[in-house]
């Protein structure tokens, strides 16, 4: 952890040493560290955009804008009763992502939102702080300072992890400029007055909204102080530091409420006398915004008023409290590594002791209605589908339904054997088949015989090497046949094309 000076909304500015060796530009040097920090705060966003190319995040998303939106959403919910959860933040960011890339799948939007939020949480570095080192060139010898900050942090909440934005994220949110809160206020009111005189009501409303953000930031910062105080009174300096902050917050609210009331009167009076409907509309919107801002200011005032009470209450309840023992255990080097290094038997004893203590509380399971509903609504355990045996066609219980009758096969074999002595054209063989059909009168088998002779010849010309294991009566026959093109034409009711010379190469006897 770095215990260096951390920038804070309530701090007035960086501390610089007065005995600098050489002054090039006093104004630039004085603000160097603050500007360096402002620059560094945007680096995590730049990094997540850079690395997105390596992750599967679609290019259509404007990740910088998504990051700003995620911080906006987190800041907007801070310090008030209802804080945003991580799940809600992802969903809201994904909705914006969906607008950016309408053609994308819902999963892509989620991926982009998740990538952005993970980047802001510094997921790549186990969700720790971002650490950068600054070289103080004015110190002699030059000194390196580590600057650590977080942008988003997670806290346990009733409905899941709650997302908080750090002071630094709030600063980034306020345009990442090194804003002095007081100066910003003054600037806002000057700008606001000028805009009202120029009758630029829309711009005035925007300026007023920016002033609102300062209040939100103060409110969030104060909520942090109070939370920490409730946990441990010693967390903040309540003698000088916190009263000072409270006084400034009080002044801020007082000044803002007075200024806003003035603007409100001015605008409200304008609405009554104004004839231009557009101006009346803009004025009405401005009144609406100012009223909302006043509620934010009043909320901050309430918080400031109750702060002292929280401190006293915490002091009262903690003064006799059991002294919190310091948790000085550094798990990784003191426990995790030694256990990994120990022999398996010893390691098991230690690891089991640890696991038993973390996990070892068993509560008998009772059926609660809510639990039961969850169980009933849970998707059923999918039974793995049984393997479907693919059927091989023609393999039905030994009987080949498409087989030719034995008589046809015998006749075809007889005809094809004529090619044993010398090659016979296919047209001649088909002619013999026709004759044989007429002579023997195989009932209804004429077409079958011609077809079988033709197909066998074609097979021997261009065998279909699909199933080398299949053995049948015909296999021996076709293996003995060979065929080649004769160059003549074949013209037959069953076939038309190049004629084939068929040769029977097997022995004369089957």
């Amino acid at each position: 952890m770095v215990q260096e000076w951390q920038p804070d909304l309530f701090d007035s500015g960086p501390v610089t040493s007065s005995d600098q060796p050489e002054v090039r530009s006093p104004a630039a040097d004085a603000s160097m560290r603050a500007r360096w920090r402002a620059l560094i705060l945007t680096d995590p966003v730049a990094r997540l955009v850079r690395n997105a190319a390596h992750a599967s995040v679609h290019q259509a998303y404007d990740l910088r804008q998504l990051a700003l939106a995620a911080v906006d959403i987190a800041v907007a919910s801070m310090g008030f009763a209802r804080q945003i959860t991580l799940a809600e933040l992802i969903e809201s960011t994904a909705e914006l992502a969906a607008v950016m890339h309408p053609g994308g799948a819902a999963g892509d939007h989620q991926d982009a939102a998740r990538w952005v939020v993970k980047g802001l949480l510094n997921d790549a570095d186990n969700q720790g702080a971002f650490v950068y080192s600054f070289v103080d060139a004015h110190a002699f010898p030059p000194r390196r300072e580590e600057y650590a900050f977080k942008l988003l942090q997670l806290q346990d909440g009733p409905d899941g992890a709650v997302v908080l934005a750090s002071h630094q994220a709030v600063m980034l949110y306020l345009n990442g400029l090194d804003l002095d809160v007081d100066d910003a206020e003054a600037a806002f009111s000057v700008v606001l007055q000028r805009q009202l005189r120029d009758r630029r009501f829309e711009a005035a409303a925007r300026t007023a909204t920016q002033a609102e953000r300062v209040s939100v930031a103060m409110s969030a910062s104060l909520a942090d102080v109070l939370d920490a105080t409730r946990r441990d009174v010693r967390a903040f300096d309540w003698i000088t530091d916190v009263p000072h902050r409270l006084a400034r917050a009080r002044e801020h609210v007082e000044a803002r409420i007075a200024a806003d009331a003035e603007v409100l009167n001015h605008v409200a009076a304008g609405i009554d006398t104004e004839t231009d409907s557009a101006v009346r509309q803009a004025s009405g919107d401005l009144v609406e915004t100012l009223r909302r801002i006043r509620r934010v200011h009043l909320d901050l005032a309430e918080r400031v008023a109750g702060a002292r009470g929280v401190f006293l209450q915490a002091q009262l309840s903690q003064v006799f409290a059991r002294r919190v023992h310091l948790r000085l255990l550094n798990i990784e080097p003191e426990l995790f590594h030694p256990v990994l290094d120990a022999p398996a038997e010893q390691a098991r004893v230690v690891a089991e002791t640890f696991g038993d203590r973390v996990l070892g509380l068993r509560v008998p399971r009772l059926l609660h209605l809510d639990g039961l509903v969850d169980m009933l609504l849970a998707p059923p355990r999918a039974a793995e589908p049984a393997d479907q045996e693919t059927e091989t066609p023609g393999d039905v219980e030994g009987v080949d339904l498409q087989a030719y009758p034995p008589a046809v096969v015998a006749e075809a074999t007889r005809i094809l054997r004529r090619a044993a002595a010398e090659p016979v054209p296919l047209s001649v063989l088909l002619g013999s088949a026709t004759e044989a059909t007429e002579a023997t009168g195989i009932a209804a088998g004429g077409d079958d015989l011609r077809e079988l002779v033709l197909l066998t010849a074609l097979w021997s010309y261009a065998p279909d090497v699909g199933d080398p294991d299949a053995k049948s009566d015909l296999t021996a026959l076709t293996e003995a046949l060979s065929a080649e093109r004769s160059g003549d034409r074949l013209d037959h009711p069953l076939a038309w094309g190049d004629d084939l010379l068929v040769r029977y190469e097997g022995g004369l006897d089957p």
Partner: protein
Amino acid sequence: MTVPIEDVWSAAELVAFGLRTGARPTDGNTYGQLLERYRTNTAFRDAVDTVAGGLGLVVLGAPARTGLVLSTQPGSVFALRMADLRGGSMSADDKLIAGLVVLGIAAYAFPHDVDLDTTDVKIVEVAALDRFVRDAADRVLALPGDPDTVDGQARRAAEVYRRTAAFKPKDRLPGPARGCTQFAVLEVLGWLVERGAARQVPQMGAGSFQLTDRFRLLVADVAGGEALEALRSVRRTATAAADSGAVKASGGSTVEGV
């Protein structure tokens, strides 16, 4: 000091809420009201602590958002050993890996000692955590062991973890199958969810879990200390055994811990 009988009832009710890991205190509900009473009223706090003690439980803390965090005393009816979680069917290596995973989650979540005192919570992702444990195992194994001692010859815990496959696919469903370390991580995280020490965050992707404040208290206030104590005691036993083994010149077997 006498405690009104109604307060005893309320105290027992609060303990019952603490046992129900799904229950969440809010400002309005009974749990929230009882918890607020526990946090502000010393007499009631004593009553609750006493009722819990009688049941064999210890109250570790009562954060407003988390509720009553309970742990067991030895021999309590509520006590359960990690090894019994999978129906008592875990092999020695399974137990070791599961224990290393719990330790790994704690080491991942609390990299510095001050983290045990902050309420920030972290997201744990199955594959990332497996990588974290593996990296630590690699680092440990890179250090040379002492080959002369009994310890140096025995199989080291890191080796057992590293030798087990990181991921085995299931036949048809997504996710790791039994027998790989990612399955062990997923299983342990499931146990933590049942215990109320973690919660699933499907929005951050499959296999993502959020650790709760309860996990921090359990690690910081009970588990860490007891595991350190166990580590010291097995080391003492091992050293004593090595010494006597050297005297009798009959070393060679590792020593069962306490």
